């Protein structure tokens, strides 16, 4: 598939929904960051759609730096989800994301791909993976359904949060030694037109699943390993919940502190208005307090937007990690199941460690930055006050 010129969006006229393909599944130039902005689409809140292409390369880098303990595994498959865009047709409105792939694997026809996918497609992929790889843990997707009216599905925040989650999902699949070679995954990344492929894929898989269903004996008891995993997951979920509550509480307390600071700074300003010699020092203090207020506001926002969602997504991940209940399906593959699960578990543990290291380090960094901003403000005030002091001392 070669890169072509982007087709215009617009409403596609009176077509039945089946005929409506992904308007931009004809790929844009994979490496052209500007192309996304051509259509000039604007999200409902009035801001132009965030292209975030530079971010994609830096997030790739991030991923590389984190994954330092891949035990010599050389990565040959890189995937990102970026550039959300709104599509309006007569039947519906939805968001698509650009999925970019770079790979040296021979399973792929080309070294690079850029396709447009919507949530439905991700959902399809996940279902296919679960069906075709029942012995493996499949990473989770963000929530499928959102209550209309409660959450704005087209708000910048929601779209961005979802994009991050979808990006994480694909990366986890891409990192998986077995799942990443799955043909459905391949199709998802490369196919122009997913719908047609979906049909084909369905047919080929039918036979295999039938084989599973008619399989052998029932599993008598869950292996002890499963139980231990289950216990750990329960405790882990508990701790995540506690951390979530603590983080929320901190944000709340910080917001209330911020409110007081917002009243505190101006008091010094109004005091300075009827002082002569003290006018500048008092104004200076007022300014510092104001700077600290802004810094605190940024910290609180960052924690709300970056820290909490990632934490919550992990809890969701764990929901999806519950050992598959349809173990019965693959009785005759029990040994294989155990081994696969164990490998996936180790992989998950490793990723979890990296993810949390990154998350908590990020939290520490944000706090450090906050204090550094405040420190700079106060430090710049002190010499100002003391210089005046010296001047006074010389004249008296």
């Amino acid at each position: 598939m070669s890169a072509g010129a982007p087709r215009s969006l617009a409403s596609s006229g009176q077509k039945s929904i089946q005929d409506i393909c992904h308007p931009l599944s004809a790929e844009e130039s994979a490496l052209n960051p500007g192309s996304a902005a051509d259509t000039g689409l604007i999200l409902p809140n009035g801001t132009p759609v965030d292209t975030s292409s530079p971010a994609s390369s830096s997030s790739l880098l991030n991923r590389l730096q984190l994954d330092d303990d891949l035990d010599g595994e050389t990565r040959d498959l890189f995937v990102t989800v970026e550039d959300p865009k709104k599509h309006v047709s007569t039947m519906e409105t939805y968001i698509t994301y650009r999925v970019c792939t770079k790979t040296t694997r021979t399973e792929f026809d080309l070294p690079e791909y850029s396709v447009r996918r919507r949530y439905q497609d991700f959902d399809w992929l996940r279902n296919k993976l679960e069906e075709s790889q029942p012995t493996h843990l499949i990473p989770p997707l963000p929530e499928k359904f959102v209550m209309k009216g409660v959450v704005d599905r087209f708000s910048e925040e929601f779209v961005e949060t979802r994009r991050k989650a979808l990006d994480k999902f694909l990366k986890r699949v891409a990192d998986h030694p077995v799942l990443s070679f799955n043909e459905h995954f391949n199709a998802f990344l490369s196919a122009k037109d997913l719908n047609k492929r979906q049909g084909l894929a369905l047919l080929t898989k039918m036979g295999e699943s039938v084989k599973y269903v008619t399989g052998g004996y029932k599993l008598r008891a869950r292996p002890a390993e499963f139980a231990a995993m289950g216990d750990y997951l329960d405790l882990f979920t508990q701790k995540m919940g506690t951390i979530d509550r603590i983080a929320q509480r901190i944000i709340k307390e910080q917001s209330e502190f911020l409110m007081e600071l917002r009243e505190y700074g101006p008091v010094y300003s109004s005091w300075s208005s009827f002082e002569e010699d003290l006018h500048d020092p008092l104004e200076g203090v007022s300014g510092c307090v104001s700077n600290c207020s802004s810094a605190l506001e940024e910290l609180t926002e960052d924690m709300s937007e970056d820290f909490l969602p990632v934490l919550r997504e992990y809890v969701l991940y764990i929901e999806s990690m519950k050992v598959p209940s349809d173990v019965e399906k693959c009785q005759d593959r029990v040994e294989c199941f155990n081994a696969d699960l164990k490998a996936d578990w180790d992989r998950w543990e490793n990723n979890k460690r990296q993810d949390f290291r990154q998350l908590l380090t990020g939290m520490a960094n944000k706090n450090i930055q906050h204090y550094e901003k405040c420190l700079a403000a106060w430090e710049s005030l002190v010499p100002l006050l003391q210089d005046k002091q010296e001047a006074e001392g010389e004249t008296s």
Partner: protein
Amino acid sequence: MVIHICLEWRKIAFCQCLNILDILFSVPKKFCTQTPRQSSDAWSLQTMKASREEKIYLRQKHRRTDVGTHNLHLLKKMEISVAEAEKRTGKNAVNMQETYTVYLIEMRPVDAASEGTNPVPDSLWRRYSEFELLRNYLLVTYPFLVVPPLPEKRAEFVWHKLSADNMDPDFVERRRVGLENFLLRVASHPDLSTDKIFYSFLTEENGWKETVFETGFQAKADSRLKALNATFRVKNPDKRFAEMKHYGDELQSVISQLLRVRARAADRLYGVYKVHGNYGRVFSEWSAIEKEMGDGLQSAGHHMDAYAASVDDILEEEEHYADQMKEYLFYADALRAVCRKHELTQYELEMAAQDLTSKKQQREELATGTIRTFSLKGVTSKLFGQETPEQREAKLKMLETQIEEGEELVKERNAECEEFVKSAWVDIERFKEQKDHDLREALISYAIMQISMCKKGIQVWNNAKECFSKM
């Protein structure tokens, strides 16, 4: 380390805020054992350990050794401090048991410290009510001076963790500092420091109260108080005093607001820090179920605990800043009192002048026989006939005497007024300078406090970050 030095340094700076550097002789032994002039070594050691901005600040303080040429003969000779506080129980005026706190005032000759000898200081115990008595006496005796205020009687602008109980040890300690501050301010005032009652307050434990009452200041106090509380309109107030009074009002209002909001902010800040302690606990619990991540989490948890604990010191330091502000809140009141007293003297002058004018007019009427102003005499003479020439002569004579006396009174009052205005304005100018200096110092030390808090925060989070990176 930094925290300790910060506290120590800040305490010294606080003392320096107490006006003129001559007071440095009398920095209480709790804060530093030697005076700056005599022990530059101790000071340079201090500066070495301090951080960069602290060094600049200390050096500058050290440089300013000659401020003013006040006749501080008291402080030149004696070092004054309020060294301790103790609880006592006894019977009060209505013969009921009560518990109260007494404060130990120590007077130590300045020379002794430099010679290295350490004689036993003169000391006596006083309770808060005696300080109040002293101040009231000074207020009445020197109405034209901005008399230094006492620390608050009851804890106000309190944030929730701070006790409002007068018996609370923290409150007592802060009051001890405030009382010492009061004595030092009085002792360094050019006029107040020479007062005999003040001197005997410091030196005569028994019988001092009687001595004060013997001065008869109570009587003056009562009449003045009544006059101050009455509303009266002054026709020609000195414009400067009117402006000062207005300034005093505004200052009082803005500092009250500042203290109120600061207390609320302190409450919130406390909450923020303490909740981080919960991270400590959950990280610890979480580390128990982890293998590789466990150690990193556990140590990070300890840092979170340290972070939560650090807020107590931070807020204790801030409380001293609040006390500095409170002093000027109460000073604003003293300033307003002086302005009120000016109005009173002006009013009394105007009353006397008015009285004189009306008497003169009466004389004129009597002399010329015309009755222009309404008077009982006028009415009765109309009703019962005019008086005899002899009667008129007698009245005229009386009026003359009254007018003479009235003129004397006006002259007196005028002189009083002028004297008051002159002396009061000198002291107000002195006060203005002191206020500007002290408040600037307070703001600088506040900024340095904030800097220290930020540095501590950065350190803790860097430590935590290191632990996280080892996960």
